[in-house]
């Protein structure tokens, strides 16, 4: 993966700059404070920091935005994780009676990592990704985002690039944050189709009737399948991978056909014939598509209320890329290699200002200089569009909170 401009050893020099001038503290705090509706919601939130030399400190917590800012600027974490909202302040967890310190709420989160797809990627393996296999993430986001909204009725799903080889989703609706462990695991299982580890060849089993959720998911997969699997991964081109596909329970003789897309058409029609001729329906074509493309979730991450997940706008120490929100309106254009690295944006800061900017600057008085300067700062970098996206996500949350409040007070008026 070409990260030519980023050198991990420069991190100690860049992080102070990043946290002082670029990290979007204001929307970040507004996000996690959730309007301050619930008492101590922000104060009881666990943060954990990974510092230099992999020193890991858990149970950090902060009273307000300025304390958060000050501490982050002091500690300059290599990585930030967000945990649950606890019953007490996490930094005082040692002082409360054991057993009474409990995780109460957290966003419903999902973690999708490319390494879980190694058996169906031929382009890369392990931590490597390329634009070909990134399609898998696109498919994953499309499928899960649809289900979270339409099936589960959630409205505030924040999708974030992990900085290296995967994506995270933060579902922030109040109802999602209140889900029990049992409910989280039920949601995650509803959304999981690919089962079994190294020892299982056939990882997707469909049976009749096919649930509407699976149908919807198949529609997404179908949009990408031939482009991704047939052309990109060439799953039907050489003997070895054909065997692998056919091990998934099909006897097809399409050797005479060389074109992968046509081979696939044959395979499908074969399945179709089988289906109409025998009583027991076969869904081999669908199962293959799903096994190759369906999102693979880490259920454990979603299940636990107290599970930690890397924070948006944290830096990935290996690649230097910022964990930025993903704009679903332009999902197909999202390119992980275009995501700015910390070195890039710090460099952009140092570039001489344009005359317009200068002019604007002299116009403004220096009142609340600090905050304004920070806003101006990130606006001059390629982080700008991601902060803007994040801002509008937080605004969306605020809007529906206000809507709820209005509804409540209207109800009260009626009585």
């Amino acid at each position, binding site marked *: 993966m070409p990260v030519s401009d980023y050198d991990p050893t420069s991190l100690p020099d860049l992080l102070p700059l990043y946290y002082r001038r670029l990290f979007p503290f204001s929307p970040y705090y507004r996000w996690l404070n959730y309007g301050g509706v619930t008492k101590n919601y922000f104060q009881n939130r666990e943060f954990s920091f990974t510092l230099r030399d992999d020193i890991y400190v858990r149970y950090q917590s902060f009273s307000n935005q300025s304390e958060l800012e000050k501490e982050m600027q002091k500690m300059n974490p290599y990585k930030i994780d967000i945990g649950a909202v606890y019953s007490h302040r996490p930094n005082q967890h040692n002082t409360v009676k*054991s057993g009474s310190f409990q995780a109460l709420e957290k966003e419903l989160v999902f973690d999708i990592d490319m390494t879980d797809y190694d058996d169906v990627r031929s382009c890369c393996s392990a931590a490597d990704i390329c634009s070909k296999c990134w399609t898998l993430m696109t498919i994953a986001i499309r499928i899960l985002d649809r289900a979270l909204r*339409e*099936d*589960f*009725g*959630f409205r505030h799903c924040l999708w974030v690039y992990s900085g290296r080889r995967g994506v995270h989703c933060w579902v922030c609706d109040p*109802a999602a944050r209140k*889900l*029990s462990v*049992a*409910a989280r*695991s*039920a*949601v995650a*299982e*509803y959304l999981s189709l690919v089962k079994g580890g190294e020892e299982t060849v056939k990882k997707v089993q469909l049976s009749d*009737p*096919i*649930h*509407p*959720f*699976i*149908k919807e998911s198949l529609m997404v997969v179908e949009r990408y399948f031939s482009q991704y699997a047939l052309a990109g991964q060439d799953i039907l081109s050489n003997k070895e991978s054909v065997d692998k596909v056919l091990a998934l329970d099909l006897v097809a003789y399409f050797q005479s056909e060389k074109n992968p897309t046509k081979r696939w058409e044959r395979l499908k029609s074969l399945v179709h014939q089988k289906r109409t001729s025998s009583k027991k329906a076969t869904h081999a074509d669908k199962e293959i598509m799903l096994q190759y493309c369906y999102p693979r979730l880490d259920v454990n991450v979603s299940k636990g209320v107290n599970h930690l997940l890397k924070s948006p706008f944290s830096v990935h120490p290996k690649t230097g890329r910022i964990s930025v929100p993903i704009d679903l309106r332009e999902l197909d254009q999202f390119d992980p290699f275009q995501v700015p690295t910390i070195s890039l944006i710090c460099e952009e800061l140092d570039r001489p200002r344009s005359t317009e900017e200068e002019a604007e600057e002299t116009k403004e008085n220096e009142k609340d200089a600090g905050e304004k300067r920070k806003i101006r700062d990130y606006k001059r970098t390629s982080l700008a569009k991601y902060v803007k996206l994040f801002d509008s996500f937080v605004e969306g949350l605020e809007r529906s909170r206000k809507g709820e409040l209005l509804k409540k007070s209207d109800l009260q008026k009626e009585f």
Partner: protein
Amino acid sequence: MQANLFQGRRVSCFRRFQAHNMQFTKRKKAIGNYQAELYGHCLQFYGQPPVENISLSEFETFAVERLKLLKTVENLGVSYVKTSEQYKKKMEVEISSLNFPYRTEVDDRKPLTGPTEYEKRRKDHISHFILRLAYCQTEDLRRWFIQQEMDLFRYRFTDLPSKFKSDFLHRNNLHYDTISSEEKENLMDKLVHSTFTVSGTTVVEQDFYKVPFQDALDLVRTRKVFLKGGYAYIPHQDIVTIVLNDFRTRLSKALALTARSLPAVQSDERLQPLLSHLSHAYVGQDYSIQKNVGKISLEQIDPLSAKSFPLCMRQLHKALRENHHLRHGGRMQYGLFLKGIGLTLDQALQFWRAEFVKGKVDADKFDKAYAYSIRHMFGKEGKRTDYTPYSCMKVILSNPPSQGDYHGCPFRHSDPELLKQKLQSFKISPAGINQILELVKGMHYQLACQKYFELTHGIEDSGFSLNHPNQYFVESQRLLTGGKEVKREADTPRGGQGVPANKGADAPLDKPANPAQAAAEVTEDLDSLFQDD
């Protein structure tokens, strides 16, 4: 048991329930009338506490029998798939043999033998409330009780003919939002495809309920329901899911309330010991305090490990002897087991030290790095929690072994091929091995282990249901050293233990976990607790 002793003494602990019952004042009707109403259906939602006073002896009998029932429910739940025919059959047999209601007809004629339907229903009602008193005290007890009561309820509700189901809902004021026929029409296709046995016509015919998906997690998890906008659309045939959810919510609230008013009950010196006895009886798995502490010498461990240790412990023992080391997971699982079979702290220290120093650890390092955690297991360090030996469930479900680990359950965590070889090396017959592997394949690990027990002890039916490695040990020792009489005792269901009917039995199970309480209770039988002043 001297039943006559209690004659004339009556208990009215249920007032405690009424104290927080909103409908208390409405209940001025004649009691007889009220009860006919109360027991009008064979299944209850336990909304109203009993209003009558009952004798202490009845109190005790009812409690013990329900406890037996719940223990059976638990055992069947780990041994069979809950939807299987076998499970249903066994449940039916157990429920009727313990004289709890399971038939749907109201039959007021006096049966030739046994109690009337009314008596059964009354027992069902009262015994449930007694156990609420006993099982509201800690989080663990509550969880166990709720789980078993839910399984019992699920079985009984599912078993009802549909007319009785509606009647049940109606009587208990359970109304759930149904969707309109237009909505049904619009969603027809999706509704048909979301449920296995629903076709177009049955969609039209039956009601669909619309509930927040959080109230139907079992259906959501298995994708057996249609979801839209955060709501689950549940066909009437699956209504048990919603009812059960309601049942759990109410029961857990009720238990929390009962716990709050419990101090009053506990101050009743006749009830308190009985209740605490009852609640300790469930544990069936509390092997933390043993009668035979110090009765085992270190030399015996090797032969015992071959004869009376379950496979998981035998494997750990062997690994320890061979490598002179065990990693943390193994030390915990094996160390607590050894404590459970009766090793003293000193013996344990000596045992582990002797083995570790043969390996890479010298005595000094052992004392610095490992002794602490062993004392910890015995509650002598740190928070002084008395660690309880792991149950099979815990071994099977939590902390799976990884590279370099020997802990876990061999039936669950070994490759079947390796397991087979191991069993062959223990001279298990090929037919026996096949039986075991079949059970493993069906994920019935404890049953596989039990089969192994039967094969290695040369018996047909072990007569207990295995849920703890220490239980395996106790049962094995009973067979090998206890002789016939003790063997018979082992046949009584677990739930029977810890109650006076069994007082002759060697029942390590009924000792409370708290040593202080143990001291107070070991010497006393229930009988003596109820002696008149």
